[in-house]
């Protein structure tokens, strides 16, 4: 038993006998969790969590069906990664009520009462735990055995992370509980990656809604946006497949390759998120206000977003500027305008052609010139390729000195 575990057991003994929480014997976030649990009246002697009625649980599960369905594949992959270790993977809502549990048979259906759907795991009810505490801290948390506030949870080491929507509001929590404390480290990174995977899936559901909205109100813009959406989803598909492979490798103790792949999976999710953000601006009909916008960054983002579209059209895209350039524009209108020119340029270039985007400041003026230069295979030897040129007012970032 390590000194810190002895400290936690001693801290429990002191708390139970005196009601005082010895701060120096606990990790700071566990101390905070115990204090919250104590102040809200949780009972440290409790052996199991309280539950909603069957009817209320059914109602809640019905309400949270989307979240449950979206998280289900990730819960399955986490459980797969835990392999034969005794474990339970849980999905909770934003009030720390369990919505779904998957794990080995002995843990989930065994004689010891493990919290199931409808169990209340807020710190106020169940004290510090792997569902309620990540929600209270709004961050990833690990609660090791006796650090749990109530006695009934001590056999487990639990980790949990809040799930957030696209507005960064917490909508739930993903958590894994393991009997073997040393198994937790190999699952931490997968848990974090899986939580980002769930958040990405929720974004996809929003992209679907955007597509339907665009189709209803502006059918002319629908097709290119729908195709871009498909390309964006591909990044998430790649992440999901990587997580599937990772979970199998971790279960089989092939940890080195799994760790490399985890980095890649996280990267794929980040790519998906960034592209989804750009896409949402493209699909938005809102008119923004004029403001400084990085023109060159916007063009780079679109080139990235359109990489599959360019490959499908077999068009090479080249950009050309000396320095990052900022213009004054409505960011959404600018993005849509650029997309429009790109798609026109792809059509004009045709199979095997090239599109070059040149951005340059016009000397002695406050304007930036943006040129879409198109070389199709038919005009590549001609001296005058096709042009699309437009101008935007520039802004110079003032030196802070």
């Amino acid at each position, binding site marked *: 038993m390590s000194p810190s575990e002895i400290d936690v057991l001693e801290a429990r003994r002191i708390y139970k006998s005196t009601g005082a929480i010895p701060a120096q014997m606990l990790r700071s976030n566990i101390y905070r969790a115990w204090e919250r649990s104590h102040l809200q009246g949780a009972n440290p002697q409790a052996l199991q969590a309280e539950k909603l009625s069957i009817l209320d649980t059914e109602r809640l599960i019905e309400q949270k069906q989307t979240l449950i369905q979206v998280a289900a594949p990730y819960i*399955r992959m986490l459980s797969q990664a835990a392999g034969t270790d005794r474990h339970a993977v849980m999905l909770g809502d934003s009030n720390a009520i369990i919505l779904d549990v998957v794990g080995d048979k002995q843990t989930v259906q065994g004689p010891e009462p493990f919290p199931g759907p409808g169990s209340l795991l807020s710190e106020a009810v169940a004290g510090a735990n792997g569902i309620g505490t990540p929600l209270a801290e709004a961050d990833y948390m690990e609660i090791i055995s006796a650090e749990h506030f109530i006695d009934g949870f001590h056999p487990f080491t639990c980790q949990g992370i809040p799930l957030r929507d696209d507005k960064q509001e917490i909508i739930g929590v993903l958590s894994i509980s393991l009997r073997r404390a040393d198994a937790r480290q190999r699952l931490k990174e997968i848990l974090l990656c899986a939580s980002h995977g769930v958040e990405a899936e929720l974004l996809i559901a929003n992209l*679907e809604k955007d597509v339907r909205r665009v189709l209803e109100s502006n059918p002319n813009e629908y097709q290119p946006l*729908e195709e871009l959406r498909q390309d964006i*989803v*591909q990044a998430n*598909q790649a992440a999901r497949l*990587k997580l*599937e492979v990772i979970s199998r490798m971790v279960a089989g103790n092939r940890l080195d390759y799994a760790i490399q792949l985890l980095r890649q999976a996280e990267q794929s999710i980040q790519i998906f998120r960034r592209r989804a953000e750009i896409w949402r601006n493209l699909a938005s009909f809102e008119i923004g206000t004029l403001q400084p916008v990085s023109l060159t960054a916007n063009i780079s983002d679109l080139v990235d977003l359109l990489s599959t579209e360019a*490959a*499908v059209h077999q068009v090479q895209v080249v950009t050309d500027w000396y320095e990052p350039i900022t213009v004054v524009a409505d960011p959404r209108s600018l993005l849509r305008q650029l997309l429009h020119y790109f798609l026109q340029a792809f059509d004009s270039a045709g199979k095997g052609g090239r599109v070059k985007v040149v951005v340059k400041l016009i000397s002695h003026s406050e304007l930036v010139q943006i040129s879409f230069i198109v070389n199709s295979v038919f005009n590549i030897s001609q001296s005058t390729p096709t042009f699309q040129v437009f101008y935007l007012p520039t802004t110079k970032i003032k030196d802070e000195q």
Partner: protein
Amino acid sequence: MNSNNTGKRKILIADDDDDSRVMLSFLLEEEGWEVKEARNGEEALETVIKEQPDLLILDNRMPKLSGVEVYQRLQAQGIKIAVVLATAHGYLDDLASSLGIAHFIAKPYDIPELLRTIESAYKSSFS
């Protein structure tokens, strides 16, 4: 189409996304399939003819022939092969039914669901 020199069932993955193709190959090999890959529609068509797989997992958005075009060319050439259309197409049901493809799955898909669809398509190819 059924070529079984190795005794394993042979599957072709046609997808332009390298990561997805490589990961899916790994998973399907673990499931006992002999896996071939194609990075675009043209390669898919060539590989079907050359390798004669038992089943084709077909993405739609691909360079050098889309999945739809690949499928139509296979039909036109009278090549019978079990196909699972696996794409992020917004109206996948409509697309699949317009082509007469019975087995399809929307991206992002879950592996157990894909495996069930593959098995179902494979079994149907004998009936």
